[in-house]
Structures are given as structure tokens and as C-alpha cells.
């Protein structure tokens, strides 16, 4: 996994990784769990520092968990308007002039080709699941 590149990345990029891990989780995460879910690419102290910074900005909230805290991302009132705006945006998929989406839509043939590419890729050297960190 992406070892080594971690220490060269900027603070903003690390915050994005940690925040993404919190959003991907079903419930609040302790720093230890965040570190685990990131595949151990970050030091525990780094994760704690980043969580503290995110909490300071109000991007995450925290609850007591044992001797420390468990963190969860916040979604405030603007988040609700945001969602409505987003579904409106999602309607006109073709207007991609300003927003370049990560992936465009697939049709049946694309899906078939993609699956065969992934299978060939997963086959030889990657165990299923692939969280070996």
C-alpha cells in the first residue's frame, strides 16, 4: 500500500483521508480505529493531531469513549440544502463542461469489459478483500 508517500503529503491531504474514513464508517471512530481503517499508513499520533484539528474547525464532533474520544463527521443545516442541490445537479449528467466526474456512466458492454479487466487484475497477485497493511 501507499507507504512512504504519507509523510510527503500535505496536511490538507491527510485531513481529507481521515475525514473520508470517518464518513465511510457507520458510526463514531476512535483514533485507533481511524488508523486501522486507513491501513496503518499514518502514525497514531498523526491521526490524533488531525482529528483534533478537524474538531477545532467544527468539521467533526466527538463523544467520550473510554479514556479518549470517538469522532463522527458533522452535517449541519447547510448539508440538507446541499443534498437537494446535488440531486438537481445529478439530473443533467451530460452537462459535464464544468464538472468533470471521476467516472462517467457505463453501458452493458463497458461493464463486461471492466469486469474482465478487474478479474484479470485481481486474479494473480491480489487476495480478495485486499486489506493487507
Amino acid at each position: 500500500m501507499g507507504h512512504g508517500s504519507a509523510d510527503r503529503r500535505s496536511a490538507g491531504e491527510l485531513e481529507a483521508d481521515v475525514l473520508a474514513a470517518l464518513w465511510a464508517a457507520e458510526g463514531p471512530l476512535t483514533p485507533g480505529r481511524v488508523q486501522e481503517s486507513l491501513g496503518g499508513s499514518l502514525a497514531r499520533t498523526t491521526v490524533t493531531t488531525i482529528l483534533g484539528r478537524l474538531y477545532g474547525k467544527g468539521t467533526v464532533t466527538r463523544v467520550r469513549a473510554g479514556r479518549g474520544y470517538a469522532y463522527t463527521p458533522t452535517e449541519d443545516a447547510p448539508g440538507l440544502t446541499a443534498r437537494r442541490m446535488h440531486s438537481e445537479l445529478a439530473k443533467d449528467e451530460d452537462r459535464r463542461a464544468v464538472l468533470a466526474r471521476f467516472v462517467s456512466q457505463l453501458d452493458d458492454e463497458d461493464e463486461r469489459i471492466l469486469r474482465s479487466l478487474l478479474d484479470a487484475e485481481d486474479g494473480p497477485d491480489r487476495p480478495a478483500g485486499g486489506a493487507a497493511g
Partner: protein
Amino acid sequence: MSYAVWVPLLVPFLAAPTARRAAAYLSPRHAVVLLTTAALLPAATSSAALALLAVPGASYLPAVAALGELARPLSLGPPPVTVALALAAGGVLAWRAGLVAVAVRRDRADLRRARAAAGGTAGELAVLRQARPDAYALPGRPGRIVVTTGMLRALEPDERAALFAHERAHLRGRHHRVLVAVELAALCHPALRTLCEPVGYALERAADEAAAAAVGDRRLVARAIARAALAARAASASAPDRPRAALGMNAGPVPRRVAALLDTPLAVPSTTSRPAGRLVVAALVICLTVSGATAVDAVEDLHGHVEMAQGQNLTR
């Protein structure tokens, strides 16, 4: 009237297909530069040609004649033909200008909506609580990465890092400006419309390669794209089938991007060879040079006629 003024109007029909072919031989970053040039230059010269066609006829209007200090209208052919040409060219030019204005307004509105959708997020990442997997770069100062919880959950942590690296490449490279520029150029000449899709693809490929360099793993980026696309496909009801024969290739953009990252010979045209690639690029350069040169020639020609009509040229 000089024939030269017609050449810039015809060149895009040759330049656009040549540019598309040439782009297939180039690295993504070079392809972006080439396709953008092949869209903007012909758009400018063909618009200039239309303006040149409109000027002689317009000189029959007293106001225009006064503006140009003309003693008499520019006589470049029979007056009815000159006036009819001017009306046609002026009409087309106005129509295109209208299209560009509408597109600019629409793009601005889209951006405003997208910024509102991203909310008041303090950091680089704007997360939307939504099951449908989606992610895009939101241009601005600073730019944001917008991603849904559905997308975050569909990917492994290292794949999420690859996705972020891809979107950062879009933001850092200001790729949206290129997309908008080419989109607007395409409104200036119908033949240039065929460059929108290739330039979009080249930008995605450029961001993919930048992401691969950032995370140090091309296969990881390939996997992230493939899994994101499959997850999005599973969540959306149906995708319309693409007209494949028209594009001359079997796979859509996503499989081609994945194959390119995995170095699987799906994305590469079967006839790839360096000399052929150079030849195609050379042909394109000639197209663009001819287009530019004839436009300049037409301007000089018109300038000569204007001077004559002003009565300055007495050697006639």
C-alpha cells in the same frame, strides 16, 4: 473577392478529425495541448473569416461607410451577391455569438449550483450524505473535492486516496478552463464539436496519470476507477447505450482509462507506430498553419480594398 477567406471556414472539417487521430498517439498532457489548439485556433480563424465576409456588404450601410471613412462601398463583386453574403455571414456570426453567450451563462449557473451544493465546508473535502456513488472536482478558490458517502463506502482507503489525487490533479491543472474553452470553441464551428469528447477523455487520462504518480501505483488508480464506475453503475437504474460504430472503438471511456493504466492493449489503436503518429501531427500543423495564414491573407486583402475605397490608393 479572394478565395482565401473561405479556407478558414473549411479547415475545421479537416483539422478536427486529424487532431482526434493525432491525439491517440500522444501522451495525455500533449494530447490536451494539441486538441485545445486544434479547437481554439480554427474557432478564431473561422469566426474572423465570417466577419471578413460580412464587412463588404456592410459597407453599403452609410453608418459603416462613415465609420471606415469610405468614399464608396467596397466593391468586391456584384452588389446583390456581396450584400447577400454579408447578411448570411453576419447572421451566422450573430447566431454563434448568441450560442456562446448562452453557454457561458449556463456554465456559470451550473458552477454556482455546484458551489451551493458543496455547502460551507471548511476543508478540501465536501462530503454529501447520499447513497449514489459520485465524485467530482469543483473548481474555485480554493477548489474542492465533492464526494458522496456512497462513493467513499464503495472504495478501500487506498483507492479513496487515488480518487482524491485524481481530483486534485483536475483542480491544480485548472482542467475545467480547458473543457469550457473547447466547449465554447465547438459552438463556433460545427466540425469542432467532435473535439469535446476527446479533450474530456485526454483530461481524465492526464488526471489519472497524475494520480498514479502521486500514489505511486498505476494499478491502484485503475482499480479505484473500475470499482467506482461499477458501484455507480449498480446504483443507477440504467445507462443509455453509446453509438459504438460511430466512435470506431469498442470500449467506453472508463474501460479505456483502466486499460491504459494497466497497460492492457485495449486502449491502444491497432495501427500505432511512431512515424505514422508524427505524420498525423505534421498534417495537423499544416492544417492549422494554412488556416491562420489564409485568415491573415484575407485580412490583408480586405485592408487593400478598404484603402482603395477610401480613395487613398491612386495607382489603380
